[in-house]
C-alpha cells in the first residue's frame, strides 16, 4: 500500500518521527534537542512523534514536545523488525519524515530508506557506503584519502599489545575506544587492559587504540545535501564535561580550519544528512579529526540558539527548498545543560509498558510559558 499521493509539500505541517529520546544527564541522546528545535521553529505546526527504545526514555513522556510516543524494537533486531514496527506506527500517524538520531540505528534506517520512501516516509540519511567510510576503524584510511590529520589508530584484539606497544613506537597515554561508543584515556599497560576488557564486554571486538593527542576538543555540526555541499555549519567548544566526556556546557566558536575540515569531509563523501565532526586542536596547533558522527549531536539545540536551526534546515532540505544564504552563527553563545524531572502517571507508564504507545493530549504549537524554554 503506497501513500505517495499524501506527500505534503509544506514542511511546517509535517508529522516528524524522531528517535534518540533517551536523556540520561551524563550522556543524553540528541532526539529531545532535535524535537525542541522543531517545536520552537517559527511557523511549525506539524506533529512530533517520539520514538524510543526503552520504556524509561524520558522523551516518550514529554507531552510539551511530543504529540505521541512509541517504543521501537532494538536495532539489534535488524532492519526487518524496524520496518514492521514503523509501518505499524505509520498506519496511525502518517509519518512524513523520520529523523534518526542514534549511531546504532543508522545502518538499518539507511538499509530501509527506499522502502520507507515507497510508503511516503522521507529521510535524509547517509548511505551505507558513507556510514562505512566514516566508521571509527576506517577513519585513518579516510583521512589519508582526504589529506586530513588524525591520531594514529590501531584495531586491537590481543591485550598482549599493551605490553609490547612501546617497542612498536606507541607511547602512553593512549585512548582505548569501542567500535561504536566509549573512549578511555589510559596511562599504563594495566589501565589499558582493564579498559580493553570493559569496552570489549560492552561493545564487542575489535577494540581501537588511538595515540593520545594533548589539546582541546572542538565540534562542528551541519547538514550535507548529498552533492558535496555543507549547509549551515555551527561550531562549538565544550566548556564543561560530564564524567563520560559529554558537553555539559559549551560555547559557539568560529574556527575556519574546522569549517574547512567539515567541507572536505562533505565533499569527499558527498555526505547526505546531518553529521557531527569531532576534532582536536592539538598542543602543536594542528587540527586532528577524531570522529565523524552520522547524526545530529546532543548539543544541536545550540544551533537554534545561534540562529541556524539545523533540524528545521534539514526539513527544508528534504522539502526541496535547498536553503541558501543562511545566517553565519555568532561566536560567543553559550549553552548550559541541566536535568529536570518529568512527572508521569502510572496509566501513562502502563500504556508505554504494555502497548508501546502514548498519545499526548493538548496543543503543542501555541505559545508556551515553560521555565527554561526560550
Amino acid at each position, binding site marked *: 500500500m503506497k501513500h505517495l499521493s499524501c506527500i505534503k509539500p509544506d514542511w511546517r505541517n509535517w508529522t516528524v518521527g524522531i528517535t534518540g529520546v533517551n536523556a540520561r544527564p551524563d550522556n543524553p541522546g540528541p532526539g529531545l534537542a532535535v524535537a525542541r528545535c522543531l517545536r520552537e521553529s517559527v511557523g511549525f505546526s506539524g506533529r512530533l512523534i517520539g520514538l524510543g527504545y526503552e520504556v524509561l526514555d524520558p522523551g516518550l513522556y514529554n507531552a510539551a514536545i511530543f504529540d505521541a510516543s512509541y517504543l521501537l524494537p532494538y536495532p539489534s533486531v535488524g532492519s526487518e523488525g524496524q520496518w514492521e514496527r514503523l509501518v505499524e506506527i505509520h498506519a496511525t500517524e502518517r509519518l512524513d519524515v523520520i529523523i534518526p538520531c542514534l549511531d546504532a540505528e543508522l545502518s538499518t534506517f539507511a538499509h530501509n530508506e527506499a522502502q520507507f520512501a515507497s510508503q511516503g516516509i522521507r529521510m535524509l540519511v547517509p548511505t551505507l557506503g558513507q556510514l562505512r567510510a566514516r566508521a571509527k576503524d576506517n577513519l585513518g584510511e579516510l583521512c589519508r584519502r582526504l589529506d586530513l590529520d588524525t591520531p594514529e589508530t590501531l584495531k586491537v584484539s590481543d591485550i598482549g599489545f599493551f605490553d609490547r606497544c612501546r617497542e612498536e613506537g606507541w607511547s602512553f597515554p593512549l585512548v582505548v575506544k569501542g567500535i561504536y561508543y566509549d573512549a578511555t584515556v589510559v596511562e599504563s599497560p594495566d589501565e589499558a587492559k582493564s579498559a580493553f576488557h570493559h569496552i570489549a564486554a560492552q561493545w564487542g571486538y575489535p577494540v581501537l587504540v588511538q595515540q593520545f593527542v594533548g589539546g582541546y576538543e572542538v565540534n562542528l555540526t551541519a547538514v550535507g545535501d548529498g552533492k558535496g555541499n555543507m549547509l549551515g555549519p555551527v561550531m*562549538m567548544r565544550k566548556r564543561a564535561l560530564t564524567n563520560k566526556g559529554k558537553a555539559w556546557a*559549551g560555547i*559557539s566558536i568560529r*574556527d575556519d580550519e574546522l569549517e574547512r575540515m567539515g567541507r572536505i569531509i562533505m565533499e569527499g563523501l558527498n555526505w547526505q544528512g546531518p553529521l557531527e565532526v569531532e576534532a582536536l586542536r592539538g*598542543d602543536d*596547533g594542528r587540527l586532528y579529526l577524531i570522529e565523524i558522527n552520522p547524526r545530529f549531536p546532543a548539543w544541536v539545540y545550540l544551533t537554534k540558539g545561534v540562529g541556524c536551526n539545523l533540524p528545521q534546515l534539514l526539513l527544508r532540505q528534504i522539502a526541496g527548498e535547498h536553503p541558501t544564504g543562511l545566517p553565519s552563527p555568532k561566536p*560567543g553563545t553559550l549553552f548550559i545543560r541541566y536535568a529536570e524531572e518529568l512527572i508521569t502517571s502510572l496509566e501513562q507508564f502502563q500504556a508505554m509498558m504494555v502497548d508501546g504507545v502514548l498519545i499526548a493530549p493538548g496543543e503543542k504549537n501555541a505559545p508556551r510559558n515553560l521555565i527554561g524554554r526560550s
Partner: protein
Amino acid sequence: MSAELGDILRDLIGKDRLPALAISANGFAFDPRSGQSFTVNHTGIDTVELLLANGSIEATVDELSKRYDVPVDVVLGGVEVFIRQLSRYLA
C-alpha cells in the same frame, strides 16, 4: 627587545588571532576561534589597542610610557610578558 618577540606579535596579527579577539569595555576578552575567555585590566586593553593600531612593539611601548608616565624599560618588560601571555592564550 628580542626579534623573537616581534615574530610572536606578527604571528598573532598575521594569523588574525589578535584582531579577532573581542574585548569589551570592562576587559572581558573572548577568542572566537577557541571559545576561551579571560579578563585584561585597563592597561591591557590599551596595550592590545595600540599593538593592533601600530603593529609595532616599540611604538606601543613609547605611547604607553607617555600615557602612564612610566619609564620605557619598565613598560617594555610589562609588554613583553603580556605578549608572551597572549600568545599562550591564543595558541
